[in-house]
């Protein structure tokens, strides 16, 4: 009964979504704001990756919100799963091969993550992707070594400082007499590492923050006692 109702409901929803979509032209040229961004990204932000320039510069406020959402998830998870007792992860020790290879891969993963977020304005990728890669590397270590511990104080401090840096970069724009999150640095030559004004700075802060947050999330989840 429940299934039938659900299917009927979904059929109606699907019909209308599809009907609306079929009215849309597919594969047409970018118009509106999209076209504007493509035309002026290099001139206005000095960034060759248009997606990055939108994410960090034109719609930088969204990214601040996005960072907040992740921070919120880490905080909420900590609040919901808060438990004074559970301190150890309940994973078995891995085999020697896994251990050794994890040890070798881990620094490389961190390096890759750092590369991705430092080059966010030049190549695909950026703070979120880089941070996620770093967290994945840390997870590998969690799985390989039962005793591998992250330094919680350090993680908290990284998380906080990176967040504060982001907001402070924003406020510094205000202090300089421009607007919130406005670029106050020279744009540099496009396609070079030191270009794009505050974009690399923001992405580095985001990278650190996301890496630390996701690691905290994984650590909190792993340390919860089995129910």
């Amino acid at each position, binding site marked *: 009964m429940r299934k039938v109702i659900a299917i009927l409901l979904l059929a109606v929803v699907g019909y*209308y*979504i599809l*009907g*609306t979509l079929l*009215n*849309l032209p597919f594969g047409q040229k*970018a*118009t*509106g*704001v*999209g076209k*504007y*961004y493509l035309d002026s990204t290099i001139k*206005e932000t000095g960034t060759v990756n248009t997606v990055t320039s939108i994410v960090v*510069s*034109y*719609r*930088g*406020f*969204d990214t*601040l*919100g*996005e960072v*907040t*959402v992740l*921070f*919120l*998830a880490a*905080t*909420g*998870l*900590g*609040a*919901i799963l*808060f438990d*004074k007792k559970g301190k150890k992860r309940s994973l078995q020790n891995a085999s020697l091969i896994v251990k050794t290879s994890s040890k070798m891969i881990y620094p490389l993963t961190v390096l890759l993550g750092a590369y991705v977020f430092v080059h966010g304005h030049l190549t695909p990728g950026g703070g979120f992707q880089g941070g996620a890669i770093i967290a994945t590397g840390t997870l590998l270590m969690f799985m390989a070594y039962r005793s591998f511990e992250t330094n919680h*104080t350090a993680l*908290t*401090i990284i*998380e*906080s*400082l990176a*967040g*504060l840096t982001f*907001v*402070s970069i*924003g*406020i510094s*724009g*205000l202090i300089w007499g*421009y*607007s*919130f*999150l*406005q*670029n106050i640095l020279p744009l540099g030559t496009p396609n070079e590492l030191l270009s794009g004004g505050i974009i690399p700075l923001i992405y580095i802060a985001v990278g650190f923050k996301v890496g630390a947050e996701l690691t905290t999330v994984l650590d909190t989840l792993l340390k919860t006692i089995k129910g």
Partner: protein
Amino acid sequence: MSPVHFIAIPLFAAFLIPLVGKVSKNLVKLIPGIVFLYLSYVAITLFPIGIHKPIVEIIAGFKAPFGISLYYGPLAAFLTTMITLIGFVIWLYSYKFIIREPIEKYYMLFMMLITGSTGIVLTGDVFNLFVFLEITAIAAYSLTAFLRDKDGAEAAFKYLLIGSFSSTFVLLAIVLLYANVHTLNMADIATKISSVPLTTRIFILILFLMGLGIESEMFPLNGWAPDAYSQAPSPVGAVFGGIVVKASIYALMRLIYLMFEFQSVMHFLVIMGVITMLIAEMSAMRQQQIKRMLAFSSIGQMGLVIIAFGVGTEPSVRAALFQMFNHALIKSLLFFAAGYLVFHSGSKKISALDGLGHDKPITSFFFAFGALAIIGLPPFSGFWSKLYVLLSVANSGLFAAVALILFSSVVEAIYYLRVVSRLYFNTEVATDVRRTPVSGLVAMGILTLVILFVGFYPNLVLHWMTPAANELLNKAAYIKAGLFH
């Protein structure tokens, strides 16, 4: 001074709290207070400016519609001031009420919830609105489960499920809007929306109605509310009723008035409002738990607000805003008082409140005061807003709605007075040696004074609400200010 402080400063505080938490837990508790004092300074400075001429704050230096801009007009001025005031009172109340670990996480979530809801009110960009809605929602889910008990987790999961559906609908609506008009700035969308085919427009409107209707407790999408309100810690119940719901109904009304001003939508809103109100008030009547009763009463009041918005004339919108303001204040007071009444009686049941009025006279007085105010007895502020809503609805000739509002007011009066009479006229049962902390009493006292003040000088507040109502109704002025500043 710029309106971006309303968003940036609480966020800054949220990022700062874990650092401070490493040093001292007591310092953590003070930070939100400092933030709210600063925000009220910002609000006082900006309010007189924003009420006359909207301030459009450009983020990152890119003009609308290319960058994200904040729109601080009379309506936003009014709502941010309200959020600041209520946030401050909630902090004061939480100061001694929240004693469960992890305290700093509570305040971080609370600060981000404030960030999210002021963001919803201020932003002039639909996708940014979505981001802030999500911030508010995730903070709300986590706060609902903050006590980590059985019912809290259940309520939070239910809320999360419904909330996720709501955000999917909002996101779909935004995507379809973008696909049709290729812009995300609200003022810009409003200028281009007429080129969109009518069926698409209606579908987008339905998606928005479903998405934001969930958050603003519209029937039949409000199943999350009673559970979330009653299982969350009491100050969080006040946050929901006073801040979150108000911000999301603002978002819904802003979008409807800006983009979809069809006559049929307005009728639909009135009908939905009436149904919401009637069902909620009838359910409130049957509740055994005091906080569930307050939650249903809150839904009922939102129904009243939706009716007034749906009528869509200048006096009715003004009355709706006035009702929102009063409801935020009074419902917070009721949740505060109920929090301590539950704490003292040791049970969530209404029947456990017998005779508490003699044992805990001050808290009970505040509850009774709030109850009388929300029913709408003459000297209190609730009376004026209900009167204005009734007058404006009657002026539009919707006499059936007037009758139903009056009927539900009677229902409301019955169940509130039932609780009050239990407090005072039942024989004394048990006494609780624990005392209500001073900070809690001060918080309730401040709210009481404001309610009394508004009750005696309603015109003072209404005077400020006229430009706010006009802003919502005058689409052309919004577009002009939002796009060509």
